[in-house]
């Protein structure tokens, strides 16, 4: 494995991002949040903005407290930070930070490190899965290979795929599934043609592994019985 645990945390942080909306197609299009940000059940919320101020009952509108009248030239610079003033407004939680490019040059995820485990996983499923389905998944893995080799996939997608394969190999089905979902949400244009094959592969591996676990349990129980009866028969 080329990715270490520290790399995984970095990848995850980098996937909490906000991009601007599509101003060309929609006026005032809101910014786009990544899957990671959207699914955060999120820590302490800032104070919700729901308060209102009652209008003064005596009818006179409030006199503005600022003396600046419109049209005046700027009245010098803003109050500098060192001046005794109100504390700076709370800095935003780390999740809102638009990621700067990481100073550490990470080794790029390698094609073989991703494709080989996937192809192996597919081979493992041969006995368990219908041929038609295997063929369908295989076709998509070929497509993935072509697109990767042809330089059509972006760095974040490759990183996430490496992580997905890691989770798959560690039998963390839910985690792998979640990564596939995050890729479909954040990078659908790049991944939509082949990702559904990876999704199915995860599902098939999961069901294969639970079948194997069930078989193992049965045979373990059977051997235990044999051993027990063997022990009883021993002189």
């Amino acid at each position, binding site marked *: 494995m080329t990715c270490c645990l520290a790399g995984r945390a970095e990848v995850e942080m980098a996937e909490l991002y906000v991009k601007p909306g*599509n101003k060309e197609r929609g006026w005032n299009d*809101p910014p786009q949040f990544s899957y990671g940000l959207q699914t955060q059940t999120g820590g302490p919320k800032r104070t919700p*903005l729901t*308060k209102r101020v*009652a*209008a003064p009952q*005596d009818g006179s509108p409030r006199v503005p407290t600022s003396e600046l009248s419109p049209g005046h030239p700027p009245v010098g610079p803003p109050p*500098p930070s060192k001046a005794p003033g109100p504390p700076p407004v709370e800095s935003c939680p780390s999740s809102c930070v638009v990621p700067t490019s990481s100073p550490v040059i990470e080794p790029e995820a390698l094609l073989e490190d991703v494709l080989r485990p996937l192809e192996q996983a597919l081979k493992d499923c041969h006995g368990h899965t219908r041929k038609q389905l295997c063929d369908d998944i295989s076709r998509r893995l070929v497509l993935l290979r072509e697109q990767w080799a042809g330089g059509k996939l972006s760095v974040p997608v490759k990183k996430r795929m490496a992580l997905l394969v890691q989770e798959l190999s560690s039998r963390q089905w839910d985690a792998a599934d979640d990564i596939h979902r995050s890729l479909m949400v954040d990078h*659908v244009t790049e991944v939509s043609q082949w990702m559904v094959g990876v999704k199915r592969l995860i599902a098939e591996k999961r069901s294969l592994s639970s079948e194997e676990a069930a078989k193992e349990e049965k045979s373990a129980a059977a051997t235990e019985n044999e051993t027990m009866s063997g022990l009883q028969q021993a002189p």
Partner: protein
Amino acid sequence: MATYLEFIQQNEERDGVRFSWNVWPSSRLEATRMVVPLACLLTPLKERPDLPPVQYEPVLCSRPTCKAVLNPLCQVDYRAKLWACNFCFQRNQFPPAYTGISEVNQPAELMPQFSTIEYVVQRGPQTPLIFLYVVDTCLEEDDLQALKESLQMSLSLLPPDALVGLITFGRMVQVHELSCEGISKSYVFRGTKDLTAKQIQDMLGLTKSAMPMQQPRPAQAQEHSFISSRFLQPIHKIDMTLTDLLGELQRDPWPVTQGKRPLRSTGVALSIAVGLLEGTFPNTGARIMLFTGGPPTQGPGMVVGDELKVPIRSWHDIEKDNARFMKKATKHYEILANRTAANGHCIDIYACALDQTGLLEMKCCTNLTGGHMVMGDSFNTSLFKQTFQRIFSKDFNGDFRMAFGATLEVKTSRELKIAGVIGPCVSLNVKGPCVSENELGVAGTSQWKICGLDPTTTLGIYFEVVNQHNAPIPQGGRGAIQFVTQYQHSSTQRRIRVTTIARNWADAQSQLRHIEAAFDQEAAAVLMARLGVFRAESEEGPDVLRWLDRQLIRLCQKFGQYNKEDPSSFRLSDSFSLYPQFMFHLRRSPFLQVFNNSPDESSYYRHHFARQDLTQSLIMIQPILYSYSFQGPPEPVLLDSSSILADRILLMDTFFQIVIYLGETIAQWRKAGYQDMPEYENFKHLLQAPLDDAQEILQARFPMPRYINTEHGGSQARFLLSKVNPSQTHNNLFAWGQVMK
């Protein structure tokens, strides 16, 4: 007295209910003199992370005309194992499972903190959720590509055993048969001819029960029986095929000549979708999701012709009775909507186009069934993509927030009756002793059906006090109401949520101050607003405004303290202090003012208003305005032009838009680049603060709001300027000592 705010808040948190009056006037006459009707906002599925559901059936009153659910207000004889229904006073025997109960060993449903409780019940086989995509192919290439990708993405967000189907339409309507092997087939219908449900089912081969139905396996309870049809298949089987099918979708092949609109057969497409679901899966949770990029221009339900030089109807056209297709089209969709609701399904409309798409005529589809209405400029925008993603958002348990097939029953104690409901529902026509003859909203019933809902869906329920004047206050001094909502949870479990509340009666003659102190001005404003918007659908705009003004005047006459002939002496108590402001902004709001909005836009705003919870509804009526400055933490300010100051940043939330406005000086500082200088880090934080607060709102809200970042003198500042009360204008600046240069 000051604790009424706490009381109101605690009750809302626990029960999802906000009443206009929390102490009830005890006679009909006095209640009408209160001006604001006795009514409540109910959020039936309010999220309660602290309320685990109980896994047994609710205990019901044995009287056949009552059947109220056992609740904390009931008197209980623990020795004799009897309970007295608080609505009809019938004495009931506890069922055998309750033999062990005692004062120290109470079942949950009798404990006061469980005034709201949820039951999980076993009621027949659990059917999977169903999603039927109805997709317009008369879109521009970019738009169609973006829509296809969003639909492919949604396949990864749906649960693996959900059933999914696809209908595409343009000039013709195609129903796609989904199968994993071989060539994909589809049934093609002409877009000009409407068909009856039976015709559709015959033509699709549904009536012969040719559906491949496997016998449900007898083993585990959690396995779903494999019911499906050729047109609606489980995701885990069909996702590959459907992903490819979606990927290969092309624009409608019929050429569109210069000066013409594409021929779009939305009316027939929707009709076929409704008929398909009716014939295969009636009475189970299903969503028909209509994606459209323009108005219906062909066949029944067409809203405009195909000549571009004839524009789609405006409010002006409608007023002058110049909207040719409106009545017929509205009727077509109303019939479809009612059928869909009767089948327990809901219809969503996702309309993305630069011009109108016919939401005015189609709004009953979403409003009667509880489906979503999303309006955007293009499918290739973050607004659509993220709003669509949020449909599939999950709660703290990892379940989808969406729920289906809800029926709401309301029971009242004798002194009250139900006048009606305003919200995304239809009537179930259940008459009974609780039903009032004075109708308001969806009326004449004590049960309603909400086919699609989520944890924020809120209904306005209006009551009538029926006690005669001078009749004594009922014994016990409290009136009670029970709300029973049965629904299909997104995990396909059937659940029942029961909320039982009580409030004190008071004699309005001697205890007006108590009634006054318990007034919930926020709830009252939203309930009156829903009434106003409901009226606006059938009455003339100016009449509705006049009605609203009259109600405000009457309320002020009743509850204001003033000396005659002296306007400056007028005072309202604290519990009414915000109400006049709410009414002021309501009359200027897009819900009651159609000027500057197209009929589709007005329909869109009203759709969301009629279903949101109290906090969001209030934001829509009177947008929130917060001011950021060096002087201290952000503070709420009056929605008034006097709040617009050169050295402040304003954040305005109208629900549909988030506006950040930089005052003149702030804008100049930003232009000069002070935020990049280390000595002025304070300024950088000041600029960032409203952006962070805006982001928190943007991250959570459904539908996703538009985002406007503007400054003094910017053209987009008009969104702020049009909302604030113009107390200062160029006409009156002199009056306050400011010098005009």
